[in-house]
């Protein structure tokens, strides 16, 4: 009871509304106002959601990693709740990222998937965190669940740069990492608007998911109801 009182869901909903509005505005500009790209035509417009999704997915995983470290140091379960919310959000965004990327890749590159370092690293990260979420489902003891998944998150996060470099070397005949192109203003506005839109949406969802996780934890750890004295 106390936890749900302290964690007002209002802030989460407010963040989500702001995020949805920004995303709608950014997508409108991206779809109807921004000019077509000279090589890709209209296909490129998916990048206005794709690129912001990528940034925010990485941000969500980083948030989960930070929360995992904080939990191991502090032992406070609010960090476990944040860890769970961040990891779930990261998995959702990484899954969306792979789908959006495939939709874009088919008309552009002619294939659904390419073994490019960034793609492959995203897929590996997605599966690593899906594994961690599965681990959380299979451990009933809250203390063990929190500690083990925090340990697994730290290892998975530290692994990401090695995965990236290994795939990059493995795939060295393919395209190297493209340098960030200079993007002109009409392209930049919807990109930034959407980036903040998804950021607010993600922050709102993480807030609400953290609240839910804390309420579940409070319920799990609550002492059994006292027996009625006769």
């Amino acid at each position, binding site marked *: 009871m106390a936890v749900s009182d302290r964690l007002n869901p209002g802030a989460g909903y407010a963040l989500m509304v702001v995020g949805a509005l920004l995303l709608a505005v950014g997508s409108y500009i991206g779809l109807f106002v921004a000019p077509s790209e000279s090589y890709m035509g209209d296909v490129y417009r998916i990048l206005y959601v794709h690129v912001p999704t990528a940034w925010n997915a990485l941000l969500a995983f980083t948030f989960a990693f930070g929360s995992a470290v904080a939990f191991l140091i502090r032992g406070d379960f609010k960090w476990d709740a944040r860890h769970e919310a961040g990891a779930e959000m990261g998995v959702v965004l990484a899954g969306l990222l792979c789908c959006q990327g495939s939709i874009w890749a088919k008309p552009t590159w002619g294939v659904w998937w390419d073994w490019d370092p960034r793609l492959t690293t995203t897929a590996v990260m997605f599966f690593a965190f899906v594994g961690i979420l599965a681990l959380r489902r299979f451990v009933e003891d809250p203390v063990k669940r929190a500690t083990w998944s925090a340990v697994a998150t730290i*290892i998975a996060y530290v692994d990401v740069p090695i995965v990236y470099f290994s795939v990059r070397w493995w795939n060295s005949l393919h395209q190297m990492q493209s340098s960030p192109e200079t993007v002109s203003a009409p392209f930049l506005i919807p990109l930034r608007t959407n980036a903040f839109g998804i950021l607010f949406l993600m922050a709102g969802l993480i807030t609400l998911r953290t609240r839910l996780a804390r309420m579940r934890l409070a319920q799990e750890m609550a002492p059994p109801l006292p027996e009625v004295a006769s």
Partner: protein
Amino acid sequence: MKQLAAALYKEWLLQSRALAQLLAVLVFGATALLLFSFAVGPNYELLRAIAPGFLWLALLLSSTLTLAESFQAEMEHRALEGQILLPANPAALYYAKALANWAQLTLLGIALVPLMVALYDAQLPRPLALAGIIALGTAGLSAPGTLYAAMTHQARSRQTLLPLLLFPLVVPVLIAAVKATSLLMLGDPMSQIGSWALLLITFDAIHWSLCGLLFGRVVED
């Protein structure tokens, strides 16, 4: 150090009394190698080209058996808990277990090589270097694998969880080991083996230190 030696001796006793387990995993790996060849058909040129990949896949699949079994004896009569209460240093316990797993997987990998040569008609110009690559690669499998085995062993449906957690993590090991092995077997005109071995060493160093640090948290409660 003294604790590590004692823990290693314990692992030696455990393993030497469970040779049947080692043999069973070896047979499993051999069966996997046999089955992979049916996926390709009797095309020796193709088989020779993908033999390194099949060798490492067989090793990866077998490793989940070895790793999942490695904490079996520790859980009977809550032996691990007893050791922690002694108090034994968790890092010593971890490194002894990981070293034992590493030794087993290296032996397994080396034992699978003759079979791979026979089944896939693979060439072995530098057998000692191949043994070195197998040792480096299996070190990368056993460090995180031992930690995850300790976790998943106490969880429900551990057979599913261990590969689910371990496989995405060891992608760099798989890539580097397969690349280095195929360069060894099919020729290395650009002498790239060194950089792949370096990647394996980096992965091994990071995971052997990180997992050793975190193991205490996994078993302490």
